């Protein structure tokens, strides 16, 4: 069931669009912000709030790569593997992260701290390699500098 906060935040979003379903993506983002990922229950809750069927909502939830339909850790690392980062040295960062965290793409550390995902170009190609953790963009990332970055996310 939606919490009062979730319900009121979704209503604010619905007001921005001519139809309730227009706010579907925003509503899913609201719930994800509170629950970290979108469970079957979350999909049902949003469907009920927007007068859509759960299947319709699930179609949207499974389409967008920043809507997480599986559990994720407290912090999500989005590592750019698009062409500019690929050329400049994405591979070194990928290998360093894999070694440091003991996880591959799509996996979460045992302590639930980090989930690692590949990500399309983050639009900071003049400072490749680039990754994002939660809302923060990290530029000119080096394998040696990773530890200092990761320390900031408990």
């Amino acid at each position: 069931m939606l919490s009062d906060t979730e319900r009121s935040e979704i209503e604010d979003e619905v007001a921005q669009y001519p139809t309730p379903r227009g706010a579907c993506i925003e509503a899913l983002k609201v719930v994800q912000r509170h629950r970290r990922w979108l469970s079957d229950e979350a999909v049902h809750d949003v469907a009920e709030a927007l007068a859509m069927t759960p299947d319709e909502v699930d179609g949207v939830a499974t389409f967008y790569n920043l809507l997480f339909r599986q559990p994720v850790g407290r912090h999500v690392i989005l590592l750019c593997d698009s062409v500019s980062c690929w050329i400049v040295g994405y591979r070194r960062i990928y290998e360093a992260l894999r070694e440091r965290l003991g996880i591959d793409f799509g996996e979460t550390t045992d302590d639930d701290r980090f989930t690692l995902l590949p990500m399309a170009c983050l639009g900071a190609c003049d400072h490749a390699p680039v990754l994002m953790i939660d809302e923060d963009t990290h530029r000119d990332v080096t394998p040696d500098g990773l530890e200092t970055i990761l320390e900031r996310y408990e």
Partner: protein
Amino acid sequence: MTQRPLTERPLTERIPADGTPLDLAGYREAGGYEALRTALADLSPQDVQQKVKDSKLRGRGGAGFPTGMKWSFVPMDGSGSGSGSDDGSASAGPKYLVANADEMEPGTFKDRLLMEGDPHQLLEGMILAAYAIGASQAYVFLRWAYREAEQILRRAIAEAEEAGLLGENILGSGFDLDLHVHVSAGRYMCGEETGLLNALEGRRATPRAKPPYPQVSGLWGRPTIVQNVETLCNVPHIVARGPEWFKAISNSTDGGTKIYGVSGKVRRPGAWELPLGTSAREVIEEHAGGLKDGLELRGFLPGGASTDFLTSEHLDVPMDFDSVSKVGSRLGTGTMIVVDSACCPVSVMVGLERFFARESCGWCTPCRDGLPWVEKTLMAIEAGFGRKEDLEHLEMHTRLLGPGHTFCALAPGAIAPLGSALEVFREEFERHIEQGGCPYESARARTGSQAGGGVPA
């Protein structure tokens, strides 16, 4: 190359050097919103359209469609100019203007620069464009990754609302415009015009069949113009200084400047506003400082991941829409990606096609099934399992996924670099197959750069 005396940078000259965004007071001090004031007081929507048409502004999002012509397809019978017609007809409702700020073309980072540095320039461009087509509702469709840009834009919108530059009766003119920010939840497909409209309506971002075109039936079935951020940022300058000036600051038959970018192993990666039609040589060698020590240029993608490779023999080609088309590629977003001599072109192709395969929306079969096949074939070649017939197989895909076989331009864009790579880097592909592996592997182990073929994604 002869240097033109006139080098103007209308889009970027106001961006503060200290990296802070220009606020409303600063923007106004520099002459901002004067074009809007003039247009609302003295020009009809058709006058604004005509100026944009005369300026020869072409879309900066990749396709290069003439902006003024696009606007002229919007019905101007008055039914959409208010907050909605009240005749009760099925088509009642507002017209829409959408700024495409979903900058997801790999290698592209120019719209970020404009939004983070001078947000009011985009807002003024949007208000003018909305006025020109009679739209009363506007959206910025912003990619999720641009967190700073979102904050900066929201602050600028609040400032503009406060100052009577947005909302009802803008500057006392009787013109109304509501402006919303929609933050995307990801997917390259959202940058495609009709995919973007579906995303804005809260649906999966699959493409729509055309016709009808969005200019006639777009968002919620209403006339809609979708325009790239850089394109919209040009509009206030065209209105303020006129089409003739706009054409004069270009080095090509199309008007205006272009924000060119360079990424890859160059000395100074970055973005610069230069006359449209500046040569790739000037951009890569002068502004980006050329390749890093010991490296040579092997090829470059002129305007993002979905453009055909060009090589050193094309360095003097003016980077404008028609000149780049003439040599078999596209200007695209104008942000170049440099492939250097230490970089395995086959590996680069694995990375490129992995991106496209992952981002395919799955709507049409050639794209959904073809791209993973292409990626796997390339991975096999890179890993040393390639066979001679694989190259014919890849060539077949460049035809099957080409223009005319799919709903949208994702698949044709995906195989543009592949088709050209098979020509330009033919020997490299053949060496991989003959040697049963990547000739760059030992060098890669030394420098640690680039991904190999077998990385799971």
